């Protein structure tokens, strides 16, 4: 019963808000180019469905590609800098600069480098930059966050550098890396959409282009429809990554007695 209420509460709130929105649009006779009522947005969603799905596919595939690239680069760099404190200190300012510089500000530059004929490359590169940092910082934190007693034990048993990295540091970092991926997935979508806005041309057929195109024509309902798909896509990706994180953690620490209400083994 509690679960049902938890599940229905957000649905009910959204329904109430949509109802109020629809009623306000009709009662106040708000022009639809200014604020489209939910009914018009629904209709636009149905009418545009094939195009929206194609655009969403374009955006999400770029975002996923960027997530994959960011994951590989961030983890490789994190493993490398763990080998030396000096290297980590040398790399840190660069990664921070990369993180704090707004992606929209570097987009025109990346656009030039990628070549105007390949906006897809620019989009993937920009989304990769945005998704890189949470994974990198999670991995570095995780690789350093080793139980000091476990470290002493590895010292005592004469573990070499490689054993320390692969048998202690890397597995210790798993929860941090999983969390980093969850955050990075959402950012990859944001990065891909921002990049689409900047790299916007006839060749870029993502959701951002749909929003821009509908905006130019003052078709507010179609803008909302594209925004709705974008939000839904982000939420689904986040939920998937959250599920993957939980599954990963279960694999990492075994089925915990704490989550399952007690284990048969505990005495």
């Amino acid at each position, binding site marked *: 019963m509690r679960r049902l209420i938890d599940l229905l509460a957000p649905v009910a709130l959204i329904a109430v808000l949509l109802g109020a929105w629809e009623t306000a649009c009709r009662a106040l006779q708000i022009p639809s180019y200014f604020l489209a009522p939910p009914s018009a947005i629904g209709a636009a969603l149905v009418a545009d469905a094939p195009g929206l799905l194609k655009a969403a596919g374009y955006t999400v595939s770029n975002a996923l590609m960027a997530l994959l690239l960011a994951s590989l680069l961030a983890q490789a760099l994190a493993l490398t800098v763990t080998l030396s404190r000096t290297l980590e200190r040398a790399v840190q300012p660069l990664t921070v600069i990369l993180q704090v510089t707004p992606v929209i500000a570097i987009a025109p530059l990346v656009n030039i480098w990628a070549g105007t004929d390949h906006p897809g490359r620019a989009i993937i590169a920009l989304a990769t930059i945005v998704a890189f940092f949470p994974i990198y910082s999670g991995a570095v934190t995780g690789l350093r966050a080793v139980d000091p007693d476990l470290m*002493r034990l590895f010292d*005592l048993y004469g*573990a070499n550098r490689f054993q320390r990295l692969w048998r202690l540091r890397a597995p210790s970092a798993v929860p941090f890396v999983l969390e980093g991926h969850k955050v990075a997935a959402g950012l990859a979508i944001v990065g891909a959409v921002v990049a689409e806005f900047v790299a916007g041309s006839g060749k870029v057929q993502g959701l951002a282009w749909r929003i821009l195109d509908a905006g130019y024509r003052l078709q507010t309902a179609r803008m909302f429809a594209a925004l709705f798909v974008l939000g839904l896509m982000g939420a689904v990706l986040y939920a998937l990554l959250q599920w993957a994180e939980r599954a990963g953690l279960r694999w990492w*620490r075994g089925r915990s007695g704490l989550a399952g209400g007690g284990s048969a083994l505990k005495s």
Partner: protein
Amino acid sequence: MSIAALREVGVDYPRGAALGPFSLEVAAGEIVALVGPSGCGKSTAMRLLAGLEPPTRGQVTRAAGRCETAVVFQAPTLAPWLSARANAALPLELAGTARSDAFRRADAALARVGLAGAEAARPAQLSGGMAMRVSLARALTTEPKLLLLDEPFAALDEITRRALADDVLRLWADIRPAIVFVTHNVEEAVYMASRVVVMTRGPGRTAGDIAVAGPLPRSPGFRTTEAFRATVETVSQALAQGMAA
């Protein structure tokens, strides 16, 4: 035969002296309890014995090699991503033993500490006492000559403490390593050890070195004997003097 010895060692940390001058000689097969007030340098002395850090002054001699020394910390210190078996096999695997052989010996060590059947369990699935037993099994897989226990039962309830103390004595009877263990509990020290070394408050020096009469391993009945009570009293007095010193 001496397994490990600290001779007039001193350890200084940036915040001040942590230990010494302190001397301790551990003979093969004996059980030594280290008791003393908090911050007197007991854990530092253990790290010196384990070879995990060098002394600032004095000399450390160790007849037991690295792989012949094992440490059990206050917390079980298990890798959460490894099964009990893989945790227990870790020292052997790090030393290059083949996995199948290491696992076989780990299973035997787990059986010795009463954990047969729990080999595949992860640390999160074990109770505090069971996790401590896995930690003990890990220390035993290398069949150490010197076993260092740094307040191994401090986080456990009284019943589990006593059961584990008896387990340690039983295991000692099997492979006869020299054991040095740190405890805050005077009765536990007297019950388990053949010798109780009392330390002064930090930087710790020796406040007393008291032999415990009665053969090892001890039966639970030992706790009710006059000799036990008299030794507890002697150790408590030495501890009180050490606090004042």
